[in-house]
C-alpha cells in the first residue's frame, strides 16, 4: 500500500516550487520556494497569520495550491491519483495546530487509529505501543478518556502520539508545544530530537518556541504575510540582517 520512493540521489525529500495560493482573490501565499533534504528538520517560523499552517497543509497534500508544485519523496503530489496520494500519506505523520483528535474515539483509539489503518499489527502490539507512547508524553492511564475530557495541553500530547506512532519517515508538526508547560515542552522536543537521531526522519516544524527549535532543526525558514523572507542554515539565520528575522531569532521587539 505504501508508495515507492522516486527520490533521485541528491534530491530533497520535500521540494516546494513557486507555490501561490489565493483566498477570495487575495494572495495568502506568494511564490514560495523551499527544500527540505532527507533526514533534516526545517523550522518554519513567522508571525501568526503569515501562512505557515497553510503551507504545511499544501505540502501534506491537504490543500491544493493555485500555482506551483510540491514534490514529496520524489512525487509531484498534485499529479498523484487519489489512491497514490493516500498511499504516500502512509509515509507522513502530521500534528495539527488544533489537535484534530477524533471526538468519537477515546484516547487509545485515537492513537491506535493510524496503526489499525496501516494494518499488519496484532492487537496486543498496538495496545503496547499506545501505552508506551502515552507514558512517553507523561499521560499514563488516560486511554479510556475522550478528547472533550482533556485539557488543551493533554490533547496536544495525545495528538503528538498519534502523529508519531507509526514512526513515519516524514513528519509535519504544527505548533507541537503550544499550550504546554515548559517541562512537557522540553520532553516533546527531546522526543523529536530522538526520532531525528534514530530514524533520519525528515520534518517540518512550526513553532513559536524558538529556543526549542534551535535544538532540533538543521535549517530555518521564516514567513511574513504569505512570503518567504528567509530560508537557510542555522549559521545563516544567526548572521541574518533582516530585522524581523533577527527579532524572532533573538526574541526581542522594537519597543
Amino acid at each position, binding site marked *: 500500500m505504501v508508495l515507492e520512493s522516486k527520490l533521485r540521489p541528491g534530491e530533497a525529500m520535500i521540494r516546494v516550487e513557486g507555490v501561490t495560493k489565493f483566498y477570495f482573490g487575495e494572495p495568502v501565499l506568494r511564490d514560495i520556494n523551499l527544500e527540505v533534504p532527507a533526514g533534516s528538520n526545517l523550522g518554519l517560523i513567522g508571525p501568526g497569520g503569515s501562512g505557515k499552517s497553510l503551507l504545511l497543509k499544501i505540502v501534506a497534500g*491537504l490543500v491544493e495550491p493555485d500555482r506551483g508544485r510540491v514534490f514529496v519523496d520524489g512525487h509531484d503530489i498534485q499529479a498523484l491519483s487519489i489512491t497514490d496520494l493516500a498511499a504516500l*500519506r502512509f509515509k507522513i505523520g502530521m500534528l495539527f495546530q488544533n489537535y484534530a483528535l477524533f471526538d468519537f474515539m477515546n484516547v487509545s483509539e485515537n492513537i491506535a487509529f493510524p496503526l489499525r*489503518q496501516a494494518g499488519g499489527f496484532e492487537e496486543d502490539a498496538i495496545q503496547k505501543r499506545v501505552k508506551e507512547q502515552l507514558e512517553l508524553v507523561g499521560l499514563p492511564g488516560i486511554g479510556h478518556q475522550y478528547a472533550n475530557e482533556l485539557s488543551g495541553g493533554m490533547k496536544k500530547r495525545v495528538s503528538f502520539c498519534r502523529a508519531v506512532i507509526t514512526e513515519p519517515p516524514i513528519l509535519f508538526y504544527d505548533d507541537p508545544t503550544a499550550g504546554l508547560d515548559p517541562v512537557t515542552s522540553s520532553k516533546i522536543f527531546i522526543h523529536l530530537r530522538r526520532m531525528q537521531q534514530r530514524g533520519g526522519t525528515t520534518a517540518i516544524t512550526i513553532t513559536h518556541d524558538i529556543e526549542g527549535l534551535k535544538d532540533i532543526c538543521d535549517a530555518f525558514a521564516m514567513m511574513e504575510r504569505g512570503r518567504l523572507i528567509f530560508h537557510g542554515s542555522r549559521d545563516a539565520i544567526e548572521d541574518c540582517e533582516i530585522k524581523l528575522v533577527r527579532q524572532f531569532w533573538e526574541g526581542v521587539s522594537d519597543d
Partner: protein
Amino acid sequence: MIKAVNRGLELFGAWFMSMAFDVGGIFVMFARIVRAMLPPKLDGPETWTNLYRVGVKSFPIVVVTAMFTGAIMVIQAGLYIEQYGAYGLLGWGAGFSVFREVGPIMIGLMFSGRVGANNTAELGTMMVTEQIDALRALAINPVNYLVVPRFIAMILMLFLLVIIGDLTAVIGGAITSQYLLGVDMELFYWSLVTYVTLVDFSSGLIKALAFGFAIAVISCHFGMTVRGGAVGVGRAVNNSVVASAIAIFVLDYFLTYLMK
C-alpha cells in the same frame, strides 16, 4: 438611487452565487458518494453505529408523533364522518392520507430536523476542528469513512421508520375512532384493508426513499463545506434543514404527480 439599485443587484448576485454553489455542491456530493461506493466497500463498525444512532434513537419520537398524527387525522375526519354517517370510510380516510402523504412528509421533516441537522453539525464540527483533514492525512477518504455509512443509514432507516410510523398512526387512529367517535375498531380495520391498496402504501414508501436520499446528500454537503468556526456550523445546520424541507416538498410534488 443608483447606489441602492447597485447594492440590490450585488446582494441578488451574491445570493444567486451562493445558491448555485450549494445546488452544484449537492450534485457533486452525490457524485462523490457514488464514486466512493464503486466498488462497494463499507466500513462495518461505522455503518452499524450510524444505523443505531439514526434509526434506533429516532424510534421513540417517530412512534409518539405517528400515534398522535393518526389520532388527529381521525378527529378531523370524524366531523364529516358523523355528519354523513359514513363510518365505514373512516379507516380508509385515515389510512389513505397517512400512507400516501402525512406519514412520509411528517416523519421526513422530523427526520430532517433530528438526524439531518445532527449530521450537518457533526460533520461541520469535524471540518472546523481539522478532524476531516486529520483523516485525509491518515490516508482515509472522509467520504468513504464518514459520508457513505451515514448516507446508507439515513436512506435505510427513514424507509423503516416510515413503515413503523404508518402502522403506528393507523393504530392511533383506530384507538381514537373506538374511544372518541365510538366507531368500532373492527369496522375501522375492515374499511382500511378493503379500500386502501398496496399502491397507496408503497407510494408512501417510495417517497420515504426519495426523502431519505435528499436529506442524506443535503446534510452531508452542508456539513462537509462548513467554513468559519462555530458560526459557520450554525449557519450550515440552518441551511441544511431549510434545503431539506424544500427538497421534501418539491420531491413530494413530483412523486405525487407521477404516482397519481
